[in-house]
């Protein structure tokens, strides 16, 4: 069983690597890191802050774009092009297919993040001339970015399992934006009364809390991230991702392929 998931994941990774659009997005991300160096040079005394902030934001933003752009087509494209027929006619369970697609894209994003992180560290080294102890927190920020990628990949995959690529992109992106303002939504739920309170509270729990996973600003200001926070955030991200993937599997298991 697990070997089939690995094979599907490997094939998904290979597809992403051979997609030329991916390289354009990575190039843009690296360009932004380079631009951060220029911006840092006109912001005397806060070069490091600017480079870390802009660089990690570029990694996060472009990673989300890649996750949504590739994720929305993971299932729907295979159904549309009927490449799924010759896969599912083999001893491959539908949930294995979903799992393999998820791990394939997740792996792609981890590798992308690693490449883009090299760009950020290179830019940091250029402006700071040496690495400092506090720079290690950048790795924690990158870890949190990867957690966000896992969540958004699962969300894109969920929508891809029943919706068209265009609608999936709209839903996934909308959910990312709302999730980025999840703390504000929580504040609104606390202030609201009656039906609005219940609806907003429901939304707080359903919407992915990307805001809580955004530690870029803290890391840029060289503030440490508590171990407990890392553990609780990891559990939240993995649990949310798992639940969304279960939803994707439940939908896909009963879907008639055209």
């Amino acid at each position, binding site marked *: 069983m697990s*070997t*089939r998931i690995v*094979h*599907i994941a490997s*094939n998904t990774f*290979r*597809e992403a690597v*051979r*997609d030329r659009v991916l390289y354009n997005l990575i190039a843009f991300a690296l360009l932004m890191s380079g631009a951060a160096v220029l911006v840092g040079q006109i912001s005397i005394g806060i070069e490091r802050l600017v480079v870390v902030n802009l660089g990690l934001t570029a990694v996060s933003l472009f990673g989300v774009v890649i996750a949504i752009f590739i994720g929305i087509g993971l299932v729907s494209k295979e159904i549309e*092009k*009927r*490449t*799924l*027929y*010759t*896969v*599912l*006619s*083999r*001893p*491959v*369970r539908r949930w294995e297919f979903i799992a393999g697609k998820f791990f394939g894209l997740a792996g792609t994003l981890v590798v992308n993040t690693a490449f883009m992180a090299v760009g950020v560290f290179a830019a940091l080294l250029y402006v700071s001339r040496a690495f400092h102890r506090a720079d290690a927190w950048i790795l924690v920020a990158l870890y949190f970015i990867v957690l966000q990628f896992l969540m958004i990949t699962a969300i894109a995959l969920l929508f891809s399992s029943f919706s068209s690529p265009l609608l999936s992109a709209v839903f996934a992106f909308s959910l990312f934006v709302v999730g980025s303002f999840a703390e504000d939504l929580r504040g609104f739920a606390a202030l609201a009364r009656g039906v609005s309170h219940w609806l907003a509270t429901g939304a707080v729990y359903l919407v992915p809390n990307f805001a809580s996973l955004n530690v870029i600003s803290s890391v840029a200001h060289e503030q440490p991230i508590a171990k407990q926070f890392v553990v609780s955030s990891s559990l939240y991200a993995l649990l949310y991702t798992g639940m969304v993937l279960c939803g994707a599997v439940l939908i896909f298991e*009963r879907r*008639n*392929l055209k």
Partner: protein
Amino acid sequence: MSAIEILGLEKTYSAGLWRKRQRCALRPLHLNVEAGEVFGFLGPNGAGKTTTLKLLMGLVFPSGGSARILGREIHDPRMKAQIGFLPEQPYFYDYLTANELLEYYAQLSGVATQERRRRVIEVLGRVGLEDAARLPLRKFSKGMLQRVGIAQAILHDPKVLFFDEPMSGLDPIGRRQVRDIIVELKALGKTVFFSTHILSDAESLCDRVAIIDMGELRGVGAVADLTATVEGKVEIIWHGSSLPASLQALTSESHLSGDLVRAVIREANQDAAIDALRHLGVRILSITPVRTSLE
């Protein structure tokens, strides 16, 4: 045990905004295919052939009934290791080469690692694509894609094969190769179930055929039996200059050529026609059954 047992399999789609309109794609279908048979599934466009195949492959879910392949239910993964499927107008991952695609499918089918390379080379040779093994599939013609499709279906040496329009898109040489492959598979004891519009292929390849139209099974049997029951006629040729009056009521068509008369008569009237001609002292040259094609 039959290789394929279809037990009342049916499919109805719900259409419309509120999904209240019902469209019956396949009425309850009962069909058995014996092991080692080459079985043709014939019907016009929209008859339900592809729906039946998709139900058997577990790509769509039946509204009723069930089916077994090699004694196992159609959603049993253990069964799927024993079958191969070629969809109609197949499309594959165009960023892969033929080699990579077949390696991938071999992995998914559970072909042993040490066996994979050998099997891939072998099937590429069988379908005539050994020279194109390293080309990306986006550069393949329609016919080449069809042949890759057959290669992936036979790659893991399955016991039962399902082909949906296997000759589609092929030139005469390609079609000949596919026919030869099907004959080879039969000689190896495989069961082949294929849908086709090309009646001559069904007639020449199939042990039995089933004819489906508007989602309903119209007939099953050996090709010879089906054509014999459709219409029984005989052609009688004799020396003469015209069709005798006594035969005109019995003849469905006649043709004069020089001093020969050719008449097509219903089998039921054969004896009466022969008696009439003998009574006239006519010299009968031949009496031949007229075999109606599946068409």
